[in-house]
């Protein structure tokens, strides 16, 4: 069992160490991490703006969770498979998912729509906790196949209260499944603070099911990367599941529909603003001379460009075909769906006819 919270980069941007784990530190690697965190933040901000402008129905912002997600995302190997929740845009980007796919979902164009097998990144799951069981089953399948991959599944602190998540912990333990449970404890489940969800630190939950639980500083990308890598490696080498509690903070609202001022105070937010995951990495990079102002300007400009492109592509996204309502329900057809589709087409045609007759 790992002791204490794993941290390699404190909020002052200084490197620290931990007896049980080791960080990989290279200027190149750190810059890449910084870049991906910056892009996920920029992409996220763009989505929030697009929602404000009516282009999206809703957006759950990852603001503050960039280190957790980019750290975990960088730990993944090509054969690994991710079962995300709905706020894991950073991991999606690491997997090579086109952010437009994420936006299309929150635009209401589709309820998912990307091919999970293409990037080994499953569809977002909105029902809290459900995907954790899917992930466990998938991991059981990996083991059956003798596959070299492992599964990483993401969920929030609130999700740990769901029976499904406990059942998944237990199935994973019993079947010794190659899986990493990656819990982003961002302190809040909408308006409910951690103490409404749990009496003890969440990584401790794993003890009761018989596998290790580790808390990492979720705003420290190096710690998230190192511990997730370690846990994935454990999984791949047949040592079973691990629970990682990435202790982080939801700096923004739960979603664009939420108003956190109703339930949490500015002091807490201010405290966490000082612990911003990007700022501390930037401090480190600058202090070591591994990146300078020009580098950060370039990153910002690149992100800006991509954000502009993303916005343009989103705006150009056509509305879905009404036929989608019927097209994908079953693989082998279903008489009633076929009948309804036909009737729907006939009904739609009456409007076309009416329009045609100039009515």
């Amino acid at each position, binding site marked *: 069992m790992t002791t204490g919270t794993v941290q390699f980069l404190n909020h002052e941007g200084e490197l620290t160490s931990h007896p049980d784990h080791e960080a990989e530190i290279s200027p190149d690697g750190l810059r890449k991490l910084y870049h991906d965190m910056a892009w996920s933040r920029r992409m996220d901000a763009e989505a929030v703006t697009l929602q404000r402008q009516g282009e999206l*129905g*809703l957006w759950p912002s990852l603001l503050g969770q960039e280190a957790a997600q980019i750290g975990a995302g960088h730990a993944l190997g090509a054969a690994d498979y991710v079962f995300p929740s709905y706020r894991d845009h950073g991991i999606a980007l690491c997997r090579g998912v086109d952010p437009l796919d994420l936006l299309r*979902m*929150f*635009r*209401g*164009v*589709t*309820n*998912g729509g990307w091919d999970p097998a293409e990037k080994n990144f499953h569809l977002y799951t*909105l*029902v*809290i906790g459900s995907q954790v069981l899917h992930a466990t089953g998938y991991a059981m399948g990996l083991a059956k196949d003798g596959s070299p991959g492992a599964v990483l599944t993401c969920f929030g602190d*609130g*999700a740990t*209260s*769901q*029976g*499904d998540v406990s059942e998944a912990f237990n199935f994973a333990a019993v079947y010794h499944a190659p899986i990493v449970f990656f819990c982003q404890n961002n302190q809040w*489940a*909408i*308006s*409910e603070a951690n103490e*409404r*969800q*749990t009496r003890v630190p969440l990584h401790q939950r794993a003890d009761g099911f018989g596998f290790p639980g580790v808390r990492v500083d979720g705003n420290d990308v190096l710690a998230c990367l190192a511990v997730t890598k370690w846990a994935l490696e454990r999984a791949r080498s047949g040592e079973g599941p691990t629970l990682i509690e990435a202790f982080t903070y939801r700096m923004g609202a739960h979603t664009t*529909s*939420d108003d956190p001022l*109703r*339930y949490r105070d500015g002091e807490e937010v201010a405290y966490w603003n000082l612990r911003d995951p990007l700022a501390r990495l930037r401090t480190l990079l600058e202090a070591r001379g591994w990146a300078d102002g020009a580098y950060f300007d370039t990153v910002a400009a690149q992100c800006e460009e991509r954000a502009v492109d993303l916005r343009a592509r989103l705006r150009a996204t056509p*509305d*879905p075909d*009404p036929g*989608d*309502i*019927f097209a994908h*329900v079953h693989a082998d057809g*279903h008489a*009633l*769906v076929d009948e*309804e589709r036909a009737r*729907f087409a006939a*009904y739609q045609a*009456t*409007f076309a006819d009416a329009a045609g007759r100039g009515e």
Partner: protein
Amino acid sequence: MTVQKLPMVKAINESLRRALASDPKVLVMGEDVGRLGGVFRVTDGLQKEFGDERVLDTPLAESGIVGTAIGLALRGYRPVVEIQFDGFVFPAYDQIVTQLAKMRARSLGKVSLPVVIRIPYGGGIGAVEHHSESPEALFAHVAGLKVVTPSNARDAYWMMQQAVRGDDPVIFFEPKRRYWDKDEVDPGATPLPLHRAAVARPGEDLTLAAYGPMVKVCLDAARAAAEEGRSLEVLDLRSLSPLDFDCVQTSVEKTRRLVTVHEAPVFFGAGAEIAARVTERSFYHLEAPVLRVGGYHSPYPPSRLEDTYLPDLDRVLDAVDRALAY
């Protein structure tokens, strides 16, 4: 509270406030119902007023919420549980179906479970998946539950009063797209019994039977039809279990034609039960088969397609035309 024009969210809020104030055994519990006042603000201010021993922010676990509510009811409490959205009631379905619904019969009446489960339901608000469903048939089929759904603020106020005061479990479906529609609420009025349907608009030529969010659509349809000289009667069923078949029968034996309207998929939906029973009761009165307008047999679509998926005025009138063509 005096007579006021209130949106439905506020009417339910006032009704819960009254319930909490008048019976110390009433509790409100659910996710985000306390400090936040619920994602729709239905429970706004209640925790502040009654404290967190009466208004409980619970862990994020619907089965746990309903399961502990059952335990609290066994201890003499009267919990009003909020399920945050329709699509999230299913983790609690086992507790509702196998425990809440059956415990009274299991005990031969020695135990009652006065638990109200509030479920904001239905579509039309541009939401993401699982936030727009209409699972009422999945509860109406289950013996031991009562299932009601107001269509307007006034009914919402009163039906909540009645649901909380009753000794049976009630699944209380709140049509979220009507949350902000206003109506006059008079806390001194005498309400209709909880399970009585209402004639929302009288008419002669055909009956539209609807509930919850679709009552307004039917009223709009009736108004549109009136302009073409057709007189449609609109029934607001209000309760699905029990369902006021006497009211439907009376109406149908006058109009001789019936169209049912709901957002839920037609297949195995409420319209089927209404059609079957009314046809049995009024076989010789019907001049047309009961026609059903509802959702398609596919998962609720992404929001950009919901206007296509949901019954609207045109689809109701199309069915009216078809029924009148017999």
